[in-house]
């Protein structure tokens, strides 16, 4: 913590919240936040605090997602939706290079990412953890991803503590939430008529100085802490992560993989909604005379059969093999590769699985019936 950061949280009243959005937009940031669209709470560009999903919440269960009205007018009274911040830092489609035919043959050029800097509003603790995980994937080795790096360095992160976790949430098991502890510029807790605001960085502190805040009272802080604690108490789903790497990697031929393969549709939903899944493929996008070609990277999924294809066909030629790859990568081999689990316990893969496969149940089943 920098010395000039206030130790005591501030209070930002809801009528002044628009000033935060205005300030960010004036400074050239594209503000991305939650809004209701097509029956879900998604992340999208917002200009006004009126666009926030006020009075809405989400009901989630395996294979089930509905938004519904809350009894109150909470602005951030939901858990997480089908979107994650991944789609803004690691876009679903992006041109990564260009080739042009010249008299001297092919020349190759960078295609610069031209996204304006973004401010993420409403980032949950599990999502801060997910961004931290993708930082290790995309930045922490010899070959960093240029698009991710540029967008990540520019992004302002305004977290909002989760006070309405869903039945599919298990961040407490993954030790990622529900309270935001690091990785943000500002962290807000919604308390009735305003927000308790905690500062995480100098950039966050500087933003705050431009806003009409007051010191949070002991009562404000007590209320915010109670709401955060309450959220932790509402999380009922558990995953036992004790020795999970060895558990899964020593059970690669467990009969449970056959059982889950009978349910799994290999539809890729879990990988698309996962805030850490990073697999991608590259398409050639050519003009008609094939003299100007762009390489377009798009999200891919280990559930697509051709994902593992060699000339002789896919290596993972069954749903059993593909589900096993996803789960063991996410929860086990990710630890070897990047030092932490690839799972943050956000529960999206459970909610958005069309047949309601719950990875916590799969892990428990393997743990219970070890050969």
């Amino acid at each position, binding site marked *: 913590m920098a010395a000039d950061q206030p130790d005591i949280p501030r209070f930002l009243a809801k009528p002044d919240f628009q000033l935060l959005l205005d300030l960010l937009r004036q400074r050239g940031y594209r503000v991305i936040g939650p809004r209701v669209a097509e029956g879900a709470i998604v992340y999208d560009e917002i200009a006004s605090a009126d666009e926030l999903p006020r009075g809405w919440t989400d009901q989630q269960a395996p294979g089930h997602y509905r938004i519904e009205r809350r009894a109150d007018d909470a602005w951030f009274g939901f858990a997480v939706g089908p979107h994650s911040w991944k789609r803004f830092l690691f876009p679903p489609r992006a041109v990564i290079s260009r080739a042009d035919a010249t008299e001297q043959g*092919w020349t190759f050029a960078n295609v610069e990412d*031209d996204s304006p800097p973004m401010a993420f509003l409403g980032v949950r603790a599990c999502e801060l953890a997910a961004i931290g995980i993708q930082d290790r994937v*995309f930045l922490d080795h010899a070959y960093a991803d240029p698009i991710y790096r540029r967008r990540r360095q520019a992004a302002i992160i305004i977290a909002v503590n989760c006070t309405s976790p869903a039945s599919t949430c298990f961040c407490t098991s993954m030790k990622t939430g529900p309270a935001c502890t690091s990785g943000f510029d500002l962290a807000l807790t919604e308390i009735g008529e305003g927000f308790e605001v905690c500062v995480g960085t100098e950039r966050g502190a500087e933003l705050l100085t431009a806003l009409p805040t007051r010191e949070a009272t002991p009562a404000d802080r007590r209320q915010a802490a109670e709401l955060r604690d309450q959220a932790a108490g509402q999380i009922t789903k558990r995953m036992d992560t004790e020795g999970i790497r060895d558990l899964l990697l020593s059970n690669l031929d467990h009969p449970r993989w056959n059982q889950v393969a009978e349910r799994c549709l290999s539809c890729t939903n879990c990988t698309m909604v996962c805030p850490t899944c990073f697999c991608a493929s590259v398409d050639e996008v050519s003009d008609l005379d094939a003299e100007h070609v762009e390489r377009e990277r798009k999200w891919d999924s280990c559930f697509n059969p051709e994902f593992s294809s060699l*000339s002789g066909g896919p290596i*993972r030629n069954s749903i059993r093999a593909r589900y096993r*790859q996803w789960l063991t990568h996410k929860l086990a081999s990710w630890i070897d590769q990047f030092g932490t689990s690839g799972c943050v316990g956000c529960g999206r893969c459970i909610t958005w699985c069309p047949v309601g496969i719950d990875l916590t149940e799969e892990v428990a089943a393997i743990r219970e019936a070890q050969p």
Partner: protein
Amino acid sequence: MSSPAVVDNPWLSRPAVIRAIRPEIEGVATYQLQLADAAANAAYRFRPGQFNMLYLPGAGEIAISVSSGHDGVWEHTIRVVGNVTRSLSKLDPGATIGLRGPYGSSWPVDDCRGQDVFVIAGGIGLAPLRPLLGELIAHRADYRRIVLLYGARTPDTLLFQDHCAAWAAADVEIHIIVDRSIPGWSGNVGVVPLLLDRQHPLDPDRTQILFCGPEVMMRYCVRSALQRGVPKHRLWLSLERNMQCAVGLCGHCQLGPAFVCKDGPVFRYDVIEPFLRVEAL
């Protein structure tokens, strides 16, 4: 544009010029390449066992091991198996393609010093081992026996037969086998692991064995080597997986915890064994 240029884009190819194309066996040709930029070409270095990503705009990109090379010019020996290799086979000398690399791990040249070195290949798998043979021969006195065991489906699909005389002259013991004979073939018939079974003597504690070929061939060769008492950490395999980014960012080539593109393609057997043994992993 206002934003700073991203100069270190791992996806960005460099132009490379095809200097020569040499037909090998049916459907296989060797392409001699140089980077178009003279300074970049002079600085280009690879280690035996590494691969490059070759890019044909519009067709796509493929991972191909380096099959030989020396100062400023190197080769890729490529079999036509798909869209990109087919497009490549239609190019003439002088054409440019894109190149990224070299990438990946290499054959354990240092561990081979003072050892008997068995080089075991099947089919096109001899290509990534050819620069290793060149390296061993260039410092022949540093190694004890060098034994090449090589097999292919038929005598007319044996690769690099025109190099055998030079290798033999450099005191490489060469044993060749084919799955199916044709009239006029008087050599061995059978599978590559048989050649290893027949190797006598074989000093398990002064031997390094390097494999590249179909996984089933390598599996049986490993079994043969282990039966002969060669420790697992003296066995090395080059694996093939779907490699797209070549730098561990795209996820395609995973085998258990390994990204084959950057942790491999050459693995010490004891490191990769638990995952290699699992079907469809």
